[in-house]
């Protein structure tokens, strides 16, 4: 579980986050949604520790993450996995070396044990036989899956995904969403996903936080979305006339 308490963040004179408090639950896919510029990425970076909040506290279970020194932060980060928007795979390393990187850095496993773990993770994301390929030799969707494999290789307790579906077609997006959800549930991970993909919201939104102009304006799950009368939420989720008609049709059928 990760808990954000009264998070404020300002850049120069601009207030980006204005007192966000929310709990991201274990074993659930926690989504941060909102329009571009709402503060999603800043919130995610604060949660993961890449940015410091102007004020407020982040708790990882019972640990006050905001008060840890750099050595303690590095210790906790070994329990953190992150999937970046652009995958952030190291171009000069093969896919196998990319996934093995955290194992090489932080474990004393034998070569065989590392290879077994890499192959398990590749199998888990349904990517067998690409060990020796380089990131530039596989598709964007495959790169995302490699990114997921790398993020789970150390068996993290916390998983962060920054726009996991950006640049992917709808079908591949669903595959990635399902993968993240199943890995989250299998390992009881606290997963936080930053997205503005409506499919993700309606498919894997188990604990959704909607940000609007730096404020938390709505929380709920995917089942609450249809029935909510929050105008900001409805304006965001059902932005196009087509989606509005779909929503009305769904509501009229009960």
């Amino acid at each position, binding site marked *: 579980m990760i808990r954000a308490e009264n998070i404020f963040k300002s850049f120069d004179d601009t207030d980006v986050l204005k007192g966000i408090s929310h709990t991201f639950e274990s074993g659930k896919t926690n989504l941060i949604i909102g329009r571009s510029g709402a503060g999603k990425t800043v919130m995610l970076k604060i949660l993961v*520790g*890449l940015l410091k909040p102007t004020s407020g506290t982040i708790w990882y279970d019972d640990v006050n993450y905001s008060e840890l020194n750099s050595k303690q932060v*590095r210790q906790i*980060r070994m329990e*953190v996995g*992150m999937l*970046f928007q*652009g995958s*952030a795979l190291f171009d000069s390393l093969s896919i196998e070396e990319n996934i093995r990187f955290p194992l090489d850095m*932080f474990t004393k496993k034998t070569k065989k044990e590392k290879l077994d773990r890499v192959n398990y993770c590749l199998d888990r994301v349904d990517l067998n036989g690409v060990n020796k390929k380089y990131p530039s030799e596989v598709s964007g969707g495959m790169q995302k899956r490699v990114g997921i494999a790398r993020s789970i290789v150390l068996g993290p307790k916390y998983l962060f995904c920054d726009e996991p579906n950006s640049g992917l077609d709808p079908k591949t997006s669903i595959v990635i969403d399902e993968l993240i959800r199943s890995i989250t549930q299998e390992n009881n991970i606290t997963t936080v996903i930053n997205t503005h993909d409506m499919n993700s919201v309606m498919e894997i939104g188990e604990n959704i936080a909607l940000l609007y102009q730096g404020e938390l304006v709505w929380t709920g799950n995917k089942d609450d979305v249809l029935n909510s009368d929050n105008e900001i939420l409805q304006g965001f989720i059902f932005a196009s006339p087509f989606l509005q008609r779909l929503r009305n049709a769904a509501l009229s059928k009960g």
Partner: protein
Amino acid sequence: MYWKETMRQMNDIGVGSIIIVVLIAVFIGAVTAVQFAYQLQDSFVPAYYIGYIVRDTTIIELAPTITCLVLAGKVGSNIAAEIGGMRQKEHIDAMEIMGVNTAAYLVLPKIIAAVIVIPLLVGIACFVGIMGGYLSSVPTGLITDAEYTRGVRSFFEEYYVFMMFVKAIVFAYILTSVSAYQGYHVKGGSIELGQASTQAVVYSDILILLADYLIAILLTQ
């Protein structure tokens, strides 16, 4: 991992720079010999002084300083672009989140590799520079083989070699750390990356020349 990365950097910086270092050293030695031969003609200074002057200027100044100025351009810009590119593509963030001490992992192997390999390159440049002086002055008839050899062997001070390696180590540290700093703190897009790469070379060159002056003062008192 750190050892492997250090070895990779030693290969990139050392092996990857030998050709340019040798080429520059040959011509610097050659030009020095020709220039001094011209300066000394019709003077009372013995001809063998050409070998002596080529040797000492190469050891004390030309080999360490010119080699490191060139390496600041070649290696420094490469380091700034490599680390800056990693920053922009979120590779550094990815490592940070894994718990990697990125400053140590990305910068330290480069500094260690450079501090080991660049003095070796400077040593090679020194030898090749003196040979360049020979090639430009003896076969062309400016002086004889015996005169050049006598000049190279005359008034030799081992302390100058020590100075050369002190300079090489200090310059290696400057060019890698300044370039890594520029790359590590790059913000923005490709224009900023280009600027960081340029600044890495400019600042490294200025600091190398400043350090050259300070070392000259300190070690010759």
